């Protein structure tokens, strides 16, 4: 037999190879499990540290008061109501801008645009997705802010609206991508059935294709909300960070993320103030987790339907 010519005996060589194989499998499995550990670690760390704060502060005060003054020597206050309102205001306004625009772009790219146009717009959108948030924040300071101040005759442009416009720009790429995928996933037969009944392309798009892509498109929106809620640098740089409950989009606001970014660097380790920042983090984490899970559920539902 030919294999008698091998150098070392086949049995020991094979043993070594099997050992190697098993070791490698163990290694990659351990690496994959790290992701589970990290997510669990983030979760427990935020909850654990946040929990310490609730020894000193009532849940009611934390969520429903809007008085935030944790650094005060006498009578510190830990109400994040104002920040939650600010965060939601900026996020919702951003979505009001980005969602229709994103759907319009997705519909245009998948149903109307020539391949050439699509080949031009798609990379541009991908490029937009890659712009660091600090650069977007800078654009908010030097372009959007002054523009808003001039247009609406404001003392300065550091308002909720500025943040909302920037977040809309940042959320746009993911909304367009997910929504376009959803529209493309609608079976061709739906459209053909509609054309066969004498509908034109526009009616088909509005009455058949978009409703059929419905939960996929909504998933895109919810995902966008999740991203916008957690965005830090942009709002930190563009919304002025005033600690008041905003009356309108033209007020300055301070979001939950901005509070963490501003105060984490200066807070003494282990104080109630320190833990309260983790409590904000835990709240934010749970919020974005809920948005992500909702988006995932909707996307899964959409995949089942199509």
């Amino acid at each position, binding site marked *: 037999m*030919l*294999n008698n010519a091998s150098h070392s005996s*086949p049995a020991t060589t094979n043993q070594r190879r099997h050992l190697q194989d098993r070791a490698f499998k163990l290694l990659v499995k351990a690496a994959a499990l790290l992701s589970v550990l990290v997510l669990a670690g983030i979760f427990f760390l935020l909850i654990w540290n946040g929990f310490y704060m609730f020894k000193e502060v009532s849940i009611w005060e934390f969520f429903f008061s809007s008085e935030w003054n944790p650094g005060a020597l006498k009578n510190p206050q830990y109400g994040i109501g104002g920040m939650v309102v600010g965060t939601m205001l900026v996020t919702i306004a951003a979505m009001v801008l980005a969602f229709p625009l994103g759907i319009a772009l997705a519909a245009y790219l998948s149903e109307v645009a020539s391949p050439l146009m699509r080949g031009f717009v798609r990379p541009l959108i991908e490029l937009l997705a890659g712009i660091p948030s600090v650069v977007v924040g800078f654009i908010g300071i030097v372009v959007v802010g002054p523009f808003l101040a001039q247009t609406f005759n404001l003392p300065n442009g550091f308002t909720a609206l500025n943040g909302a416009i920037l977040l809309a720009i940042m959320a746009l790429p993911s909304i367009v991508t997910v929504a376009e995928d959803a529209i493309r996933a609608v079976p061709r037969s739906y459209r053909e059935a509609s054309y066969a009944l004498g509908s034109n392309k526009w009616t088909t798009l509005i009455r058949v294709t978009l409703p059929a892509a419905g939960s996929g498109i909504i998933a895109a929106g919810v995902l966008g909300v999740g991203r916008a809620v957690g965005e830090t640098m942009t709002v930190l740089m563009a919304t002025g960070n005033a600690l008041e409950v905003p009356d309108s989009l033209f007020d300055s606001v301070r979001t939950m993320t901005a509070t963490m970014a501003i105060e984490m660097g200066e807070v003494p380790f282990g104080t109630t103030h320190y833990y309260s920042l983790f409590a904000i983090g835990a709240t934010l984490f749970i919020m974005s987790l809920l948005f992500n899970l909702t988006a995932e559920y909707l996307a899964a539902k959409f995949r089942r339907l199509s």
Partner: protein
Amino acid sequence: MTDKLVVRNLNIAFGEKQVLKNVSITFPDQKIVALIGPSGCGKSTLLRSLNRMHDLTPQAMVTGEVLLDGHAILGAKVDVVDVRRKVGMVFQKPNLFPKSIFENVAYGLKVNKMGDKNLIRARVEEAIKSCYLWDEVGDRLDKPALELSGGQQQRLCIARAIAIAPEVILMDEPCAALDPISTLKIEELMLGLREKFAVVIVTHNMQQALRVADSTAFMYLGELIEYGPTTEIFNHPQHELTQRYIQGAFG
């Protein structure tokens, strides 16, 4: 005539679906056995169980025995790498790696550490020659294998399989993707392989079974219906199903 592979009471299910039902069959050494039958009859599953390729299907449930030279090859304790080195396989579509011609044939020799550089070179040359490919590729062994024609690729797959000196060669419809001339070349090659190896082929092509196989097994819905010398199966089928399948296929 010695029995190379013995299959006893083999049952295979993928989840709820029973694909092989209590199959017992023997494959002799230095003979070609053809497995025929309509699609979904389990012939490919049977073939793939002979070198444990069903391990790759997550929900496969296997009971029964497969013996190679009297040694069991199923079961978790068996060294599957060793089984596959002894039982080579050629697939339906040529599946060369995106490497050079030489690297493809040397692949099995290298992973199985079968010899030094010179020995590997000699074995690659020998394998390519016994597949009648040397005249066509001998002067361009370092060229990408995927540049060869379909028929050449399939013959190189056979060369790759025999380079590691297996004892059995399994072929899963090896000519399904080839033109008639390439098919004839491969059949000629099979007849040559018979001198050294036990060969088992799955085929949809009745004439091919007639041309190359010493014995033929007809399978239907996971069961082995009839097994015997090829001329007997084709000329005097004992079972009505066999008769209908062969006539249908001819007509």
